[in-house]
């Protein structure tokens, strides 16, 4: 079936590394990690990727103000008009969970963050608010591009957001999932992830000329479930393999057509092992692979969008950025994890995300 082309661009992102996708790529190709030791009230000191303090990201309602700032940047470039058919999509795992920590459970409801985004965008229809654990951001991109291909809209603004909170930090700590030093995805000595916070978004459209700073062409997306364990990934990479196979079929690409993989790469023993097995089973052992969480941490619902945008921008610049923190690859599946930046072999990116509940998402995008 001939599918409507969908184009991606105008990406914006704010993380511990700074603001702007171009700035992220610059810092990642010239500097080091933004993960730092951070003391959370009532918690043990830990390593995390905190957005540098300023007037917008400190104090109450920081998640709302962070969302506003990212959305404003996207709107300034995309300039949607009332005559066009836009869809809003918001990805998050915990939204404003700090409201619950302050004792206001009702204010932590995820649809409220969607309503905030709707008002900020001045649109009539509220966003689709998507929560699929750590695959939320990638799933939101899949939903938006699919909606355009089905004719539900012509353009979409897709945003992912999550912030650091004691709620989430203590939860990951209770699972023994946090490394004491900046996380080391796919490394033999990896001992857990590092959490981060971010807001990132892109504009997607069926109209190539309508996308500022064009970054890539959508080739497909798929979601699959492990049906195996609620908090641990499949030992055989079953769900991720199915997602990769499904998106490859949609794109009409073989493993040889994939020029770079941006993996989920949390730095936990089980996740990185699972991914390596899935990629080897998918015939992707030779494809240059990297994970970005060693730079700014695991940004949960924002991760898929932020990492996709950075990987696409890097491919446009002809680079596949290394895996920060990697010294010696130590995973059971045969994969080509980059310890140094590499010249891109071509424009085709495979981006994957996986999350609790056994959710896996995979997309293929061709850098423009």
């Amino acid at each position, binding site marked *: 079936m001939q599918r409507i082309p969908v184009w991606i661009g105008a990406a914006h992102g704010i993380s511990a590394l700074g603001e702007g996708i171009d700035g992220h790529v610059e810092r990642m190709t010239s500097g080091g990690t933004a993960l730092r030791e951070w003391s959370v009230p009532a918690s043990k000191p830990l390593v995390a990727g905190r957005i540098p303090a300023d007037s917008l990201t400190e104090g109450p309602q920081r998640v709302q103000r962070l969302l506003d700032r990212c959305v404003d940047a996207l709107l300034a470039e995309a300039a949607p008009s009332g005559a066009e058919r836009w869809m809003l999509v918001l990805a998050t795992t915990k939204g404003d969970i700090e409201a619950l920590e302050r004792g206001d459970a009702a204010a*932590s409801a995820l*649809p409220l963050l969607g309503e905030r985004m709707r008002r900020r965008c001045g649109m009539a229809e509220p966003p689709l608010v998507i929560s699929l654990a750590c695959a939320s951001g990638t799933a939101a991109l899949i939903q938006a591009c699919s909606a355009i291909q089905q004719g*539900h809209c012509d353009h979409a603004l897709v945003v992912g957001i999550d912030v650091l909170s004691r709620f989430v930090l203590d939860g990951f700590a209770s*699972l023994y999932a946090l490394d004491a030093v900046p996380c080391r995805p796919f490394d033999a000595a990896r001992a857990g992830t590092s959490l981060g916070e971010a807001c990132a978004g892109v504009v997607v459209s069926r109209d190539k000329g309508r996308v500022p700073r064009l970054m890539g062409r959508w080739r497909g997306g798929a979601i699959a*479930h492990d049906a195996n364990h609620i908090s641990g990934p499949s030992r055989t990479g079953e769900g991720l393999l199915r997602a990769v196979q499904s998106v490859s079929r949609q794109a009409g690409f073989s493993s040889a057509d994939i020029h770079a993989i941006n993996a989920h790469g949390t730095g936990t023993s089980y996740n990185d092992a699972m991914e390596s097995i899935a990629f080897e089973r998918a015939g992707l052992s030779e494809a240059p692979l990297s994970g970005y969480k060693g730079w700014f941490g695991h940004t949960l619902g924002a991760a898929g969008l932020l990492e996709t945008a950075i990987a696409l921008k890097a491919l446009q610049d002809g680079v596949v950025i290394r895996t920060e923190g990697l010294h010696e690859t130590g995973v059971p599946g045969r994969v080509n994890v980059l310890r140094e930046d590499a010249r891109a072999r071509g424009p085709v990116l495979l981006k994957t995300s996986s999350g609790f509940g056994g*959710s896996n998402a995979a997309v293929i995008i061709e850098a423009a």
Partner: protein
Amino acid sequence: MSILGTTSYRDGTFRIGDSRFDATAGDADARLASAWAALAQDYPRFHRADRLSRLVLLSAAPFFDPSGGPLREVDPEHVGMLLLSCTGSMESDARYCKLLRDEGVASPALFVPTLPSIALGELSIRHGLHGSGLCLLMPAPEAAALLPAIGMLRQQGMKWIVCGWADTFADHARAAFVAIDAEAWSDHDINRIQAHFDEQ
């Protein structure tokens, strides 16, 4: 017709198509347990799951009933899942947050279900479903919001979809689910789903 079956649950009253079971005694957890017991399912994991997941497991179970459920013999590779909710994981969030506040320690068992999509994970494990799925958060059950998601699942090759609204917080627990034949789907069928939601 693409709607193969319906279930609903409202604070103790569980309906499967036209049949009805009432469990009005006890709190929200006790009523859910009574409704589950009426299904005679041999699945102890149900009782260890969080409340949102239990609501979803209960609502979907009749669709997979080996003695007549419309999805009893389908290929689990091609079954997608869609969950709509307003409260999402708020019941689990509150329980976990109270533990953090009162005892200063986090519990993995209480932390993991603080993601609404964990309910999809529980459903996938229960019935071996490897397909696509999404959890959408919205203020009220608006079936029209499902249209892009149903289309996405069909685009990814899903032939059947378990789809519904589930909402629970404090003593409130409501759900309305449908089993869909995705190959027979017409966008007009969304009106039947909305009508089912409106009956709750």
